Each structure stands twice: as structure tokens, then as C-alpha cells.
């Protein structure tokens, strides 16, 4: 039976398109295991990289004896290192993510699934975690873990309020490795997102922020005398919404997005704003590709 595209985390068509992609990082990380990824580091593999002079202590197995015969000097052959990459998908699972159609959380899960799939296909280590902090997966590696990954994502539900800073702290404590962090969030944290992002940058990780906003946040269809109730802290705001207020709201939103973009740009964080109703394969293959997360 065909399922609604929005409710399926990864459809076969999307998987087919993603299969050819791979995750890219701008930073050099030491992989824990041999992977399929050519590292910037020199190591052991079949692919020749360079020569260097022998220094005492080097592994004699890598001395190029033919060269020694010709030049009477000892040189070591260096090979390209192949290693794996850590992909951390950090999903904001706060109640505010349950808005929109499909919900922002659903969109975030689809995005994490897509990136995770790309990582698993390339034997990268994929870790899924939520800012709410209730669930955290053990690193997954290899395509065989795809279903495990999807199962984990399926179990993610909007949970109790947790500030972004607390979520990041908890994430940092649980995951000590380095790699790519894709933070999928709406950044709607009244205490601010800046400290949390700084903490992630401090771990020398390649950070991507995918800023999800539902259409009702981008262009709210509200008018009249209303009592707005915050879905996270149940905070109530009495407001008379008219055209002027709506215009002002849009200005505030633009300003908020612009500040986030600027903050990220200054700290080499890749920032992507996307509405929650945008197709996830488009986000991955077009927007994230443009920003260098996948190639």
C-alpha cells in the first residue's frame, strides 16, 4: 500500500538518489576505524601519496628499497589514509517542532534519515541524538544498520521542554568524538541559541545548522484579539493582531533569521533556512550540496 511521502522517512526513490552522494567535511578528523573515505592524513592503504626521508624509528616495511638502490638514500613511501567519518544528527525534538504540515519534527527526522543513509552507504559512523536528550543511538555503521537507524528515528517524539544549551551539553557529554554535526532545529529558544552553538564549535566539529520553520511561522494567518499560548512553556501573550502587527512580526522574523545567519557565518557554521514543507531530497541534493555537506 502506498504511503504518504511526508509520513515515510525515506522512500525508495529518495534512497536511490541519495545512494550516489557522500558526506564531505571541510575539517580533518581522525577516524576511529578504516573507512571508505580517503583521509587527508597519510596512512596505510594501497594508494601512493608521497615520499619522505627516513628517520629512525620509521617502519622499515615502508622503505622504498628500489630508490635506496638507485640513490643510496633511505626514503619512505607514504600512502593515502582511508578512514571513516562521524556524522552526528542532532534533532531538536521540542514541542515547538510539532507544528506545520508535515511537522517540523517529521521534516527533521526525514532529513536526519537522508543524511544518515548517505553516511551509512559510505561506511561512516552515524549517531542520532535529540536535544530533548531522551534517546541517543550508539554509532551505526554500514547499510545493514539502515533499518535500525530508521527505527530509532521513528521513535523520536516531541518531548518535554529542554533548552538548547542543556540539550547540547548532554549531547557533548555523551558523544566525545569529532566529525560533522548537523543540528536540525527551529532555534526558537527563549534563552538563546548562541551559547549552545558556541559549545558545539568549541569541540572543533564541522557544524551545520538546518533552521526549520513551519509555514505558519513564516507567514502567520492570524488576525484579531488573540491569546497566544506558547507550546513549550505554556506562556500566554495577549495580542491584537492587525496588519501593522503582522508586518512587524515579519520584520522581526527577518531580523531573527538574519542574526542567526550572521552568527553562523562568523563562526564558520554552515546555516540553512528551510521551510518544513520543502521536500527532504531537495534539501539534501540541492541546498546541502550547495553548502558542501554532501557531494
Amino acid at each position, binding site marked *: 500500500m502506498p504511503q504518504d511521502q511526508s509520513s515515510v522517512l525515506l522512500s525508495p526513490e529518495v534512497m536511490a538518489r541519495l545512494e550516489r552522494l557522500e558526506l564531505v567535511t571541510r575539517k580533518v578528523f581522525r577516524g576511529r576505524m578504516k573507512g571508505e573515505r580517503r583521509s587527508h592524513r597519510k596512512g596505510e592503504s594501497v594508494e601512493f601519496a608521497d615520499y619522505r626521508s627516513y628517520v629512525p624509528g620509521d617502519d622499515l616495511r615502508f622503505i622504498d628499497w628500489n630508490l635506496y638502490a638507485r640513490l643510496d638514500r633511505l626514503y619512505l613511501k607514504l600512502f593515502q589514509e582511508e578512514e571513516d567519518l562521524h556524522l552526528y544528527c542532532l534533532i531538536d525534538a521540542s514541542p515547538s517542532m510539532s507544528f506545520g504540515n508535515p511537522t*517540523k519534527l517529521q521534516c527533521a527526522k526525514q532529513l536526519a534519515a537522508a543524511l544518515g543513509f548517505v553516511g551509512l552507504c559510505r561506511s561512516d559512523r552515524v549517531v542520532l541524538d535529540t536535544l530533548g536528550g531522551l534517546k541517543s543511538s550508539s554509532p551505526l555503521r554500514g547499510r545493514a544498520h539502515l533499518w535500525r537507524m530508521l527505527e530509532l528515528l521513528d521513535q523520536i517524539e516531541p518531548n518535554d521542554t529542554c533548552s538548547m544549551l542543556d540539550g547540547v551539553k548532554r549531547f557533548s557529554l555523551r558523544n566525545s568524538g569529532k566529525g560533522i554535526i548537523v543540528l536540525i532545529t527551529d532555534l526558537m529558544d527563549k534563552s538563546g541559541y548562541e551559547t549552545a552553538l558556541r559549545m558545539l564549535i568549541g569541540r572543533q566539529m564541522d557544524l551545520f545548522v538546518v533552521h526549520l520553520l513551519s509555514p505558519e511561522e513564516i507567514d502567520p494567518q492570524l488576525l484579531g484579539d488573540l491569546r*497566544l499560548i506558547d507550546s513549550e512553556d505554556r506562556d500566554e501573550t495577549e495580542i491584537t493582531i492587525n496588519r*501593522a502587527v503582522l508586518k512587524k512580526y515579519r520584520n522581526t522574523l527577518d531580523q531573527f533569521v538574519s542574526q542567526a545567519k550572521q552568527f553562523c557565518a562568523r563562526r564558520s557554521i554552515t546555516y540553512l533556512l528551510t521551510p518544513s514543507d520543502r521536500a527532504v531530497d531537495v534539501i539534501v541534493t540541492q541546498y546541502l550540496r550547495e553548502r558542501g555537506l554532501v557531494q
Partner: protein
Amino acid sequence: MSFISSLPLWAWLLLLLIPPAIIALYFLKLKRAPIVVPSTFLWRRTIEDLHVNSLWQRLQKNILLYLQLIVVAFLFLSLLRPGCRSESQLGQRSILLIDHSASMSATDEKPNRLAVAKDKALQLVDSMASSDVAMVISFSDRADIKQGFTSDRRQLRAAIEGIQTTNRTTDIREALRAAAGLANPGRTSEIDNVNDIQVAEAMPADLYIFSDGGFSELQDFDLGNLAPKFISIGKPEPSNIGIVALTATRNAEREDEIEVYGRLVNHANIDTSITTELYLDENLIDATKSTLKPGEEEGVNFQLRDIESGKLTLRITDNDDLLADNEAFTTITPPSKIELLVVTKGNKALEIALETPQATKLARVKLAAIDYIESEDFKKANLENPFDLIIFDGVSPQSMPFSNTLFIGSVPPAEGWGFGESQSPVMIVDTNKNHPLMQYLEMNSVRIVEGYPLKMPAGGTRLLEADIGTILAAAPRGPYLDVVSSFPLVREEDGSMVTNTDWPIRRSFPIFLLNTIETLGNTDADASARSVLPGQAIALKVGQRLSEVQVVDPTGSSTQVSRGSMSQIIFTQTDNKGVHEVLTPDSGEILERFSVNLFSPRESQIVPAEKIGFGGETVTASPAKTPSRREFWRWLTALAIGLLTVEWIIYLRRIFL
């Protein structure tokens, strides 16, 4: 601009609580709809500056509250009844009475008085407020409601502009009755009438009378809720000489000679010399010059010879302010005898009295026995009405004939007539000498042996009163007149006829018969045709023979008129002055001629009245414009309602500024 407070102080104090109440209710009434949003983070940042001076911000931002306060302000202002002084405003309900009688065609005002009256009425209509209503009634000798109460100025203007001049006389009574009927519903408007009470809610109205005042004072008219205003039309010193009478009479001595007599009246206030011309069938046959002093009447005489018939026109050649009375018309009709039938058992005294030279000149007498009127021949002939007068002497027919009758000593078989118990002797006590039948009669010396008290139908006239009651009376029967004497000339006693009264040997008897022939036979010495006033109805006697006749008016247009069940036709289309001819529709034979003339001294008297009287109340002529107050509260209330509608629309459509 002035204000009139329509509420007491305490009411104002209560009302002043409304604006604060609206502001308070505005804040209290707000029922904000709860809506769960992802985060109020951005909304809070949005309204951060709105929270500064939030009360003032709310006031400033919300147009609905403003509109409500403005609406209340307008309503308060309405209650203060602001207004200003105005000079040309009609009352709330106005009735415009416009005179279009003959005198209103006088040209002392240019182009004529009616045009000026219409102009003034139109000015009043133009100054009407939109909520005012008015109606238009034109009147001459009758009233015509041209336009019922309406606030539509276009209709009122059309009604006024549609009023045309007429040749009719003036009688404002009917117009006033129509106006009073609207202002005093259920009332007869008769003064001193105790039963004249208001049965429905009165609707007071201003009554504007545009007239020259050429009508008599209405002593018995109560205007009730009508507030009359008389707008006199006409210059104070108009010049008019009018013809007020024209007759043509055959000379009693010489039958071929006709005397034409006209009467002229000078209503100008200066001596005026005029030329009067007499035309026979539009050919000038005589003329005379005369000088009339102010207010003086003068007769003009013309003697005509060897003229059998024709149309006579008397014309004043000099123009004055009223041309309608400068011409008069009459016709000369050939002499004719009436057909008189005497039904009697035999009465020598009656036969002798009808053989006098004067009686034979006026009537062709046919004597018949009672059998004759019961015969089929008579019944057939009766339908054609061959007799102008039938005298029943001591006999009664089975049914009343289609002609005038005189019953002597017998009861007519008509409803209402009857004899009482026979009484003897009978003493005459009074004679009604005002009646044309009883003119020149001296009856006191007449002795009557036996008679009966006479019962007569309603509407009858007592002619002779005796100690036993009425013994001679006349009563109309449709178009006919029946005269009944309750004492016979001869009576039967012991099988023989004996004299019952000595009246036949007295001079009054043949005179009475002559009066009877002249009055009941409709004959007189006048050679001229009947004359009626313009618009007045005339009874045309056509008998039973014709079911319809054709009437040709002076302009040449003819009207077909049907008779109905009566032997006469009431013809009302007499608006055009001149000689009208009544013709048979088939052969075109002239049955009768009658003339329509403005013989009305009151219409000829065109000096405009300065005041008019209604039941003891005198209304002085006043300018059409009256000082009044122009009120604005209706506009303000309408504005308030309009604003309330706008506020409601804004509320519904959430149009926030």
C-alpha cells in the same frame, strides 16, 4: 446655530456615563481567542514596543472604539437638536391648494395669475426638507387632488406644473374638505356639530392657499388641525369689464321681434369706455358704445327682427385683464308649444280655463278620458314621451307617466303620496308665493267645501296650506315634477256632480294653470337657450325615444352620451365656453342648444382679496416664505447610523488600520 435640549438634566447626566462605559466595556468585553503557537518568542519581540503605553496604544490603534465614541457623540448632538433659522421652508406636512378658476387666468400678473401661483408653489416645494411631505390640490368649482402626500419633489413639481387654467367658477369648499379630511380624519369639519369628533390620530398640516380669494367666506367650516396660509395672487388694481348676463326674449306683443339684453359690470377703479358688438352666427349685426363708472353695472339692448334661430355672441372689443368674461353666447330658438294632455271625466271649468288666449298660445291641449291612458296606444306613446304635461282631473292612472303631472283631487300612484281623512270645510291659511307655480295668486278668498290633508313624499314642497294641513304640494319624481291638489274642483254628491270650490271662477285659477303650463311644460317667453356656468352639469331632456345623443361643443369636437334609465342625460363636459348643440346621433337633427357662459360676477371681480375667512377665522394674505427653523438632528442621526454600519462592517471584516 442654536440648540434645544430635548432631555432634562438628570437624563443628560445619565447619558454622560455612556462614553466612559463604552471605553470600560471595550476593554472588559475583549474575549481573546486562545491559540497555541510553536513559540511566542518572536511575537513577544514583535509587541515589545507595543507594551509601552499599552492603554494609549490600544486607544490609538483601535478604530472601532473611536467609531463607537463618535457615534455616541453624534447621537448626543442630535438630542441637543441643533438648528438654524430658515426662511423658505415648508412645514413638515403641507397641503398646497392652487386656484385654477377663470379669474386665475387674469393677465394683470404676467403671464397670468395661475403661472405666478404655480411659480410660488414651486419655490416652496424647492425649499422642502427631505423629510417634509406635501400634497397638491387644484380647485375651481371642484377639487382635484393632483398629488397625494409625498416627499418626492419631482412628483410635486410635475403635479404643480400640470395644473391648467379653466373657465370655471371658484368654490374652495370641496378642496378644503379634501384637505381637512386628511388633517382631521373622521370629521365633517362642520362648525357646532357635537358629533364631529376626532376618531383617528390627527395629522396637523400647513395649508397654503394660492388664490386671488374670489370665493365667499366659509362661515360653517372648521379647519381643525389645518394651519391656513393665504398667498394672494394678483395686482391690487386690475382692470376688468365683464359680461355677467345675456338673454334673448321674444316680444310678447310682436312675435317676430327679439330683444337681446346684456349686462356689463365695470370692476376697474376708473371710468371705462367700451364697445360691445353683437354677432349672429359670427356676423356682426349690431354694436354699441358705453361708458361705465367704477363698480357700475350697465345693460346693453339690441332689438332683432325676423330672426327665427341662430347663435348670438356678445363681445367686448376692448382688452382688459380677464378675457374670459368678455364674450357671452346664447341662441335664438324658434317658438314652440307644449303638448298638454288633460285626463278628465268632464270638467267644464278646467276646459274653459285652458282656452284662454295665453294658454292656447303656449300649449296644444288634448282632452281624453281615463280609458285613453290605460290603452295600449297611450302606453306605447308614453315611451316616446309625447306630452310635456298631463293633468289628471279626479282620476288616477295605474302607473305614473313619463312626464310632469298635475293631479286635481286624486292621488298619484307614486310612492309617498296619500290623502288623509276627508274634512269639511277647508280654510286656506297660507300660500307659498316663492314657488313659480304660485306666483301672482291670491288664494285667501278661495272657498273649499271638502278636502283631504295631503301626504307628500320626502323632498316635496308645500304650495298651499289650509287648516286641515297641506292641500297643494309639488314633489320631484326623478326628472319630473308632480303637483297634487287634494281638493277636487267638482265632487259627486247624490249621483250628480256638484261644485266643490269656487276657485274656477276666480282669477287665480287660470293664472295657476298658466303657471303650471309654463313651469311644468318648460316653456317661457325666452327665445334664448339655457345657459350654464363652465363646468356646471346640465340636464338634457331626450325622452325615451333616443338611447344616446351627440353633443358638439364650440370647438367642434363631439361627445357621444348614453341616456341610461332616465329620460334625461346629465351632461358635465361643459368646460368650453360657447354654444353646445345636442344632436341625434343618426340624423344629426338638433334636439337642443345650450350655451356655456362665465356669468359670474364673483369671477369677473378680479381684485385680489387681502384676507379670507374660515368659520369666523380670518387669514390675511402673507408672503409664501415663512420663518422657520431648519433642524439638523436627522442628518446627525443618519450620520451616526452610517458610522455604526461602518463600524459593524469593519468589525465583521476585521479591517484593521
